[in-house]
């Protein structure tokens, strides 16, 4: 009965909710993505430092015992409020795909993943009145963007003795934005005017990570990542270069009880490095961000911890691109989820739900995010 209720909650609650894209992703490079598996997502990202299907720490690949392919789909239901009004939105994205596994006869692990680095999916509608040929004409404007930056990660990890795992990864950052501005006039003798532009991005980055286990019950993890610069081309012409942040992550995992595992992590990104580049392009700049997450996984059956565990998480963080100058957006999320391995543990489904609140001055939004992860271990 408890399990049935859990499933019903995960599916029924998002009736009014929201998503990965956000009005807080309108500026700068967009809404930063979170390269998380459904399991890590369900714990607010707290387990990401130790999760081989997440992209935060390459050393986490060392926890794999078999070749694993994972795929995540994210549905968001978002309620947006700003000075122009309110609206309920929804969106589906596929934020994370991974394939990774151990190398035969070596304590080494390799993997490749494709995840969302930042999302610039939005459509903004506004209304105005303009004077045309001496007459005031109501107009409605729509500015939309589709796309964003993606992160292709080639990672490897190596187990040093039993207690240490070190890892490294090479990141290719690429992507594009299709931008469209549309103006429609109430006086239909004026034609709808549509203008489009395409912005493409290229950059590279590297990351290093380490996990130190202190016995089977306690581990510490850390990672550092540098993404250098991203080149921004508009319609095939270079228009700017933007500094991408350094990312510093630190996490710990504790098996508090045979049935209960706790984890926490802190991730800091130096987005302020992009501030001057964005200001030079007429943007609102960028600020450093941090995210703190705390999560737990409760396994009903300690001998089969992957059989419908209950996962909980809470996180708080800041977002890099301000809508109101001097007022950095914040984000708070509560999450839960569960999962199941079947077919002799060769296949798995994980489901996560997160309720997120974001705000900055008069701009607020709350979102329900539903994350479905499918994993296969052939």
């Amino acid at each position, binding site marked *: 009965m408890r399990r049935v209720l859990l499933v019903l909650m995960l599916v029924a609650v998002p009736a009014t909710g929201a998503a990965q894209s956000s009005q807080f992703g309108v500026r700068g490079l967009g809404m930063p993505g979170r390269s998380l598996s459904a399991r890590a997502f369900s714990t607010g990202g707290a387990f990401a430092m130790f999760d081989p299907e997440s992209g935060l720490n390459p050393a986490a690949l060392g926890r794999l015992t078999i070749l694993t392919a994972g795929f995540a789909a994210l549905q968001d239901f978002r309620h947006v409020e700003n000075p122009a009004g309110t609206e309920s939105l929804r969106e*589906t994205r596929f934020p994370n795909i991974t394939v990774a596994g151990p190398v035969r006869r070596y304590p080494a692990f390799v993997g490749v993943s494709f995840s969302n680095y930042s999302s610039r999916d939005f459509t903004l509608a506004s209304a105005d009145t303009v004077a045309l040929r001496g007459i005031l004409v109501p107009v409605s404007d729509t500015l939309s963007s589709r796309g964003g930056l993606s992160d292709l990660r080639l990672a490897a990890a190596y187990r040093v003795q039993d207690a240490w795992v070190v890892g490294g990864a090479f990141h290719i950052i690429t992507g594009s934005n299709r931008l469209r501005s549309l103006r429609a006039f109430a006086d239909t003798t004026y034609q709808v005017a549509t203008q489009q532009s395409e912005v493409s991005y290229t950059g590279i980055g590297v990351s290093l990570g380490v996990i130190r286990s202190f016995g089977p019950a306690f581990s510490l993890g850390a990672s550092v990542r540098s993404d250098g610069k991203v080149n921004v081309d508009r319609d095939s012409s270079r228009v700017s270069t933007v500094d991408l942040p350094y990312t510093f992550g630190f996490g710990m995992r504790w098996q508090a009880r045979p049935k209960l595992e706790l984890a926490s992590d802190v991730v800091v990104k130096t987005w302020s490095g992009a501030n001057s580049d964005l200001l030079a392009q007429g943007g609102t700049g960028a600020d450093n961000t941090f995210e703190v997450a705390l999560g737990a996984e409760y396994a009903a059956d300690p001998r089969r911890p992957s059989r419908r565990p209950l996962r909980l998480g809470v996180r708080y963080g800041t977002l890099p691109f301000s809508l109101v100058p001097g007022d950095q957006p914040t984000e708070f999320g509560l999450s839960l989820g569960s999962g199941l391995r079947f077919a002799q543990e060769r296949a798995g489904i994980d489901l996560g739900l997160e309720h997120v609140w974001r705000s900055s001055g008069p701009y607020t939004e709350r979102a329900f995010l539903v994350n479905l992860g499918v994993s296969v271990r052939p």
Partner: protein
Amino acid sequence: MSGWRWAGGVLLLTAIVTACQERLTSPADCPALCPGGSVEVFDTIVPVVQNRDSSFPVFADRASGYVDRGGGPALLVSNGFAASEDRAVYRFAPRSDSLVVRDTLRAYTVDSVTFNLSLIARDTLVNGLKVYLYRLPSSVDNTTTFADVDAQLVDINLIDSIAVPDSVNTGTLTTTLRGADVARVELPPGGDSVLAIGLRIAAETPTGIRVGSLASSTGANYTSYVTVDVPDTGSTRRQSLSRVAAFNTFVTQDPVIPDDRLLTVGGEPSSRALLRFGLSDEFLDSSTIVRATLELTPVRPIIGLPTDPTLLQIVPVIGDLGAKSPLTEVGTLIRTDSLPSVQSDTLRVEVTRIVELWQSDRTSPQSIFIRVPSTREAATFARAVFHSTRTPLADPSIVAPRLRITYQRSFPFENP
């Protein structure tokens, strides 16, 4: 619940949730929230190229036009109408004075004659319309003038009149002559056997009508019901002889004389105006056209028949060869505008699609023809005469043809 059922349930429910249609449009208080700049709309005037606006035929060729008088799909008849004073003329095919009965040509007696006319359009607000049919000399042709015809429209030549019910707006008008009245259309033996008639109208107020013509297969006809006496048998034969119009035209008291300093559209013979513009590549490259309006200043009010709107067409030119330039046949590029019954103010016609054509195809000449649609050319009362670049600019209200273009510059999308 087994693991498979659990997984299946999760997948099914998740599929239902994620199958929702995306909705990404949110309200925004721009420019505070919107990245990039604002949409800016500009307005500009583009005059026609100096001395590159012409109407055809020019004065020297005024005897003939695109459609000659009487060659249009209707003929004009009016009575004190402000647009023009017109009379219609039909000349029918010859009717021989004998018939072949039993291999013998035999004379016949006309018992009655019926005339049929097609009423194409009238002012439905004018009551008491009456159409008068007069007999004209059979020699009437396209050299006949208004004065020649009008002089013949007198009582002595009156054939009959047709009172058109106020409820009849279009259709066939018929009158029949019987008995002694048949003599009014008698064709004397030994003559050319050709009957010609002229039309005049009367109504409660000055007005005009358009009647059918040969060009639209709606010309007038008349039918003679005759009796042939066959003496050898002591019997009679009754037959009908129908004759359609072989020639038709209408005559105008004050025909439009093309003035090379002006632009003439319509009239008879019909004229068309060719305008050429010179929008720069720089402008076309960097602009999104929102609205383009062709503005024409009439020299005098353009008067049409009320409830029978005057139409003008703006047609882009495929290749600029002057008067004989081929015109596009793409319907979406041909702009037809309906004028009020009296157009005295500046005429404005939306030509956005045409300017967009020039923007997308730089090989397309920036030239347009203004004409009356072919279904009405040389067949409407409206005679449009516009100022051109050669009009002396004594009055500031006199403006040569021009385009008023509302456009947007490239949107300043924000560079991340």
